[in-house]
Every structure is written in C-alpha cells, then in structure tokens.
C-alpha cells in the first residue's frame, strides 16, 4: 500500500468498497452480532464469514502488527486512516478476539520466533478463539497466589489444579494460562505462561451461573494435562512479568465501563418518562436530588475521560490512573443501575416473562455488582492509586 497518507486513504476506501459486504456496513444490533471466530463459532451469515476471511487475509484484523506474522503492518497514521474509513461506512469489526486484544501483544513481546509464526497468523485469521487462565478459586485479589502446578516432565509439563472466571471457556479453542512451575520459589517467582488446546485430554470445563443468571464465565479443571514444552512462552518461572503486562492492558479496557450507556437514554430522561413531571420538575423530589448528583458525576467523569484521551494524544502516559478510572467507572455504573431499578419500581422486580424480557433490567442490575470485583476489585484499585500515584507507604 502507498506510504503517502492521501493515496493510502484512497486505496483503503477502494478496498473496503470492494471487499466489505453490504450486510457488514451497519452497526451491530446486539452482542450476538459479534464475530468471535475459532473452530466452534457458527457464522450468522455468509457475509460475516467472508468479511472475517478477507480482513484476516489482509492482516487488518490486527492492522498494526508486523506483516511477517500476517498483520497489517500499518503505522500509526495509517491505522488512524483505516479506522476512519471503516467508521465512515459503518463497517463492523470483522473479529472480536482476546487473541488480538490480549495474547497477541504478549506474544509479540515475550514469544519466541517459532511461537510468533505459529500463533499470530492464526489469531489474525480468527482461527483460534482464546480463553484466559489466570484466576484460581483460592487466589482472589491476590492473583500471584496461584497454585495450579505444572511439573516438568522433559518434553512436556504435566498440569493439574483449576482455573476460575475463564470467559468463554466453554466455547474457546485454546487457553493462555499462568501455572506454577516452581512451588518452592517466592509467590511472584515460579510462575510460567503456557498455551494449550482446550481439547487436550484431562480438561473439564464447567460454566458458572451468576446471581444474574447465565454467564460466559467458566471454571476449568486440569487432571494430568500434558503441555508440550514448546508451548511455554517467555522465560521459565518469569511468567509474572507477562501477567502484569496483560493486566495493565485489561484494566484500561474495563475502565470505560462507566460510560457504557452510549446509545441509551440518560437516567434523568428515563425518570421523566417513567415517573413524569409536575411543571418542569421530576415528580419525585428526593430521587431528583439523587439523579442530579449522579449526572454531575457522570458528566465530570465523561469529561475526565475526554481529558485523559487528549493527554494521551499529547504524549502523557495514563499509567496507574487507569486504576482510578476502573474504580470510578464501575462504581458509577452500579449507581446507574441502582437508579434505573428504583425508577422502574415494581416492574423492575420481574425475573421472568415476556413483558420484562425475562427480567433483563433486574439481571443487568445484578450483573453490575460484579463490575467492581472483576478485573481487580475496587479495593485493589484504590490500593494502587494510594501507592503508585499518591506514593503512600505500606
């Protein structure tokens, strides 16, 4: 492709025009429209399959990854142009993938050449759907307290133990996983990073039901699972560095949750519609006072995200502040759903039936309670702010 930005833009536009199927040129109507790829994925349409195939071949599912591993090889400016052009025609993302958002960057940084050549192209083409194997039932916030032992058996490791909170563990193909390879070393030492096929004998996957109902989370059990030595990434016993690298990444992704109402009505608008107004004021004075406090915070938070983005553009690194974003954004989201439940009164209590879409609001509300737990609890985020931003001791 051309190195001249204007030329590049024209080329992108033309390629999209030719290759992006018409059905893929509209915003997704729900999460169900997302294409996750992998061997278990059932395409919703031929257009969806084609769009993934073409984008994958082009390397544009991972547009800024090196060409040698199948990526798009675009520079920063080109990446921006591609995004703009895709947005212009409302093109849907061709692929949602933990492989691209999480594992890939870690492989690029820590993987050896053979691993890069094996996994990155397959990730880019959407052939492997990845599951994450970090948390363990007894670790909780103390992630490094993981136990699942992988014992060195020469050409392979033998893995036991279990993982919890593995998203899409039941529909994923492979897992990237933290395991304990030296039980005698201190907590942060002795951890290694490994990849393996979830079809490997000895693996059992059990979906987790949440208080809100079904969930994508799973518990994954290992019983003498053989992992070939070449599937261990980075230095042996130094997996914690990779984990930290990935976690920072994850936190930044979650931190924007507080603004997740994009497209839906504001709390105050919902309230006036459901409860009504007398004159120009909402019919419930106490609720109104609570809503305005919430919306002041919501707007201040939106502006703070805007400011953070502008600062990142201006070259300032977000760093540990992302912990505060995660904290505040998830707390705001919990508040939002508390208010929405309050506004809808007894209607919000329904758990099943068509009228309530099987209790969607109540289930969504319950689900938000997990926001301040998953991806590092609010308490952990505040600890990080206190120590790494404020420099408080202990």
């Amino acid at each position, binding site marked *: 492709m051309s190195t001249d930005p204007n030329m590049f833009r024209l080329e992108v536009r033309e390629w999209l025009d030719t290759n992006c199927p018409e059905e893929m040129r509209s915003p997704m109507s729900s999460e169900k429209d997302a294409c996750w790829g992998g061997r278990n994925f059932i395409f919703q349409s031929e257009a969806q399959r084609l769009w993934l195939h073409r984008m994958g071949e082009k390397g544009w599912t991972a547009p800024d990854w090196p060409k040698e591993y199948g990526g798009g090889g675009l520079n920063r400016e080109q990446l921006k142009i591609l995004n703009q052009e895709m947005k212009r025609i409302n093109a849907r993302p061709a692929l949602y993938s933990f492989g691209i958002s999480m594992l890939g960057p870690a492989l690029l940084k820590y993987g050896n050449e053979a691993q890069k050549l094996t996994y990155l192209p397959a990730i880019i083409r959407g052939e492997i759907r990845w599951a994450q194997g970090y948390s363990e039932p007894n670790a909780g916030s103390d992630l490094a*307290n993981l136990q699942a032992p992988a014992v060195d058996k020469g050409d392979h490791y033998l893995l036991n133990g279990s993982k919890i909170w593995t998203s899409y563990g039941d529909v994923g193909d492979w897992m990237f996983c933290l395991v304990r390879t030296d039980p005698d070393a201190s907590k942060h030492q002795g951890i290694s990073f490994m990849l393996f096929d979830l079809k490997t004998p000895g693996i059992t996957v059990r979906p987790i039901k949440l*208080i809100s*109902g079904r969930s994508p989370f799973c518990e994954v059990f290992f019983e003498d699972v053989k992992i070939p030595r070449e599937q261990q990434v980075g230095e042996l016993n130094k997996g914690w560095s990779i984990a930290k690298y990935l976690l920072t990444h994850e936190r930044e992704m979650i931190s924007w949750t507080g603004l997740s109402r994009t497209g839906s009505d504001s709390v105050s608008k919902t309230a006036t519609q459901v409860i009504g107004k007398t004159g120009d004021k909402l019919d419930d004075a*106490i609720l109104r006072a*609570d809503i305005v406090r919430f919306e002041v915070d919501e707007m201040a938070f939106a502006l703070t995200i805007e400011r953070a983005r502008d600062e990142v553009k201006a070259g300032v690194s977000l760093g540990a502040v992302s912990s505060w974003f995660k904290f505040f954004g998830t707390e705001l989201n919990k508040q939002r759903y508390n208010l929405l439940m309050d506004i809808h*009164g007894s209607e919000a*209590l329904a758990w099943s039936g068509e*009228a309530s879409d099987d209790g969607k609001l*109540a289930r969504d509300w319950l689900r938000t309670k997990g926001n301040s737990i998953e991806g590092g609890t609010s*308490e952990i985020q505040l600890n990080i702010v206190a120590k790494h931003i404020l420099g408080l001791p202990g």
Partner: protein
Amino acid sequence: MALVLTEEQTMLRDAAKDFLGSRAPVLHLRQLRDDEETQGFSRELWTEMAEMGWAAIIIPETYGGLDYGYTGLGLVLEESGRTLTPSPLISTALLSSSALILSGNDGLCEQWLSQIATGEKLLSLAFEESAQHRPASVTTQAVSEGDGYRLSGTKLGVMNGNSADAFIVTARTRLSDDPCEGVSLFLLPANADGVKIETTQLLDNHRSSTVRLDGVFVSSDQLMGPLHDGYPILKKTLDRGRIGIAAEMLGVAQESFDRTLQYLKERKQFGVPIGSFQALQHRAATLFGEIELCKSVVLKALQAVDENSDDIALLASLAKAKCGQTAKLATAEGIQMHGGIGMTDEFDIGFFIKHWRALNQQLGDSRFHLERFARLRAY
C-alpha cells in the same frame, strides 16, 4: 415502654430462630426456586408456622388469635428475614389481618380471621395501580348495583396473589377532588366471576400478581369499613405493613452482615485474613452502627403500634426508609466483600440483595418514605 425486649418476647424470637434455622434456612428458598414451585413458598411450611402460632400473633383472642401484638410479629419477621423464608407472613398474617381488624367489620373478621389464624386461608391486599407506590391513586371503579357493587379495574403487584383465597381491594365509590376520599375497601373472593389473575416470578422468587377485575360483583356485606372512607384504614394498614417489612429488612441486613463478617475473618488474601484490612474494618464498623440504628427504629415503631401511639406514621416512614437504606448497604457490601464468589449463584449471599430489592420496593421505597417523613414534619 422501655426499648428492650421482654423475657417473653426474647423467648418468642429464640423459638422463631430455632424453627426457621432448622426448617427453613436459605437452602429452603433455593430448593423452592430450583424446583420451580409456582407459589413461591411452601404451603406445608406455612401450616407448621401457623401451628407455631405465627399466623395468629396480632389477631385478637375473640377471633381465635393470640393477641400478642405487633412487636411479637416483628420479631418473627426479623428472623424470617435472616433466613429469607418465603411465606404469607406479610401479605396475610400482617397486612390482611391488620386491615380486617382495623375495618371493625365484625362479620368479616369472624369469617376470615380464625381461618387465617389456623393457616387455612390466605388473603392479599390488592391496591397498587402503578409500578410506583401510590396508594391514593385509585381508578378501580365500584358501581352500586342492587345489594352490592360491580368492580372494574386492574391491581398490580399483589403479593402472593396466586395463592390468595380472597383479596382486599380498594375501589372508588365516589369521585372527589381529594384522592384520599371516596375510596372504599372490599373483601373479594379470588374465585369470584370476572377475576383474572396473572402471576409473575420476582427476582427473589416471590410471586406477585396482576389482578384484573372485569365487572366483578360483590355484595354489600363484603364492604370493609365505612363506605367512601376506606382510605384511612388502608393507610393504617400500610403503616403496619411498612414496619413489618422494615423488621424483615433488618433481619436481611443483619444476616447478610453476619455472614460477611464471618467471611472477612476466614478468607485470606496476601497471607492474612481480609478482615484485617483497615478499609474493610472501617466499612464493617460503619455498617454495624447502621444496623444498630435500625434495631432501635424497628423496635420503637413496633412498640408504637402496640401502644397505638400518634407517631406510628412518622415511625413507619423512619423505619422503612432507614432499614431500606441499611439493608441496601449491607447486601451490597455483602457481595463486594465476598468478591467473585459472592457473584455466583452457588453462594447464598446473592439471595439477600435480591430479597432486599423486593422488600425495599414494597409499600414505598426509601425515597418515598424520606419524602413522607419530611411532609409529616411539615417541611
């Protein structure tokens, strides 16, 4: 009256704790839910509860009751909040019995109260007409016809509506500028012609019904309380219900807190019990205090009913508002402090937040009662 329990009351509470702990722990609710039992509670268990006398606590002796007062019933409700035991305690034993007693209709009291006391019959109040709690907003019409009335309208959020043998219904018998005037109360058998009941499973697995009345005929002797002036009875009934629900929310808050406290002591992170972290300690200590406040307001409100004090309305709103807020905090902290495990259905703590949500909504949420508290204090 001193704000302490009498020895007799303490015994009643201990008996309730023993019975519910062994016969109806949280597992009982879980099983009802998993078995998809459609009433949302166990009729068998209710019979046992009635045998304990709980269906009869506030019923005067003349109608086969124990005449033991609201404080006693409140203690049982608090304990049933701890175990999240679903039952018609609120809908029948508290609200419907109160309405009957307050109505002063001796005939209806004789007919129904003794059968409520034994656990044989169940009644429910049917008075809400919107998703928000607006008891004075009654559009259901009662048109005089022969020796009775024809009722038409729709009632929402009827607790245990699908188990009720009869409903206590509000209907407008006369138009008036003041919405609180011109409302009458009727006792309506659930199987009367023209009654249609649609039932919804709620998030806490209780059942709530929409009751549609399509020209249902009731005879005049089913009129409870004075014609056109039933609202004062409803209001007094609701205040008793609010205090009872506050007592149940106190139990929900207390048990949720106790379980969380236990978890804080047991669960280890970074090599120490998480309960040794000062931030969690301070939150736990604050919550402890909020629950102490609730204990006082609930007991005061219950005693006020038994003393027929002038402050019942203010204390009812105080109790409902304060216990609603506290149980909200206690159940939310319950999940947060349990971490991931608290989010799983397998663990019991999530049941508490679900039940809090339903209780807080019923008969006016915390904000409704803050608003009312301010109005009663003339500001």
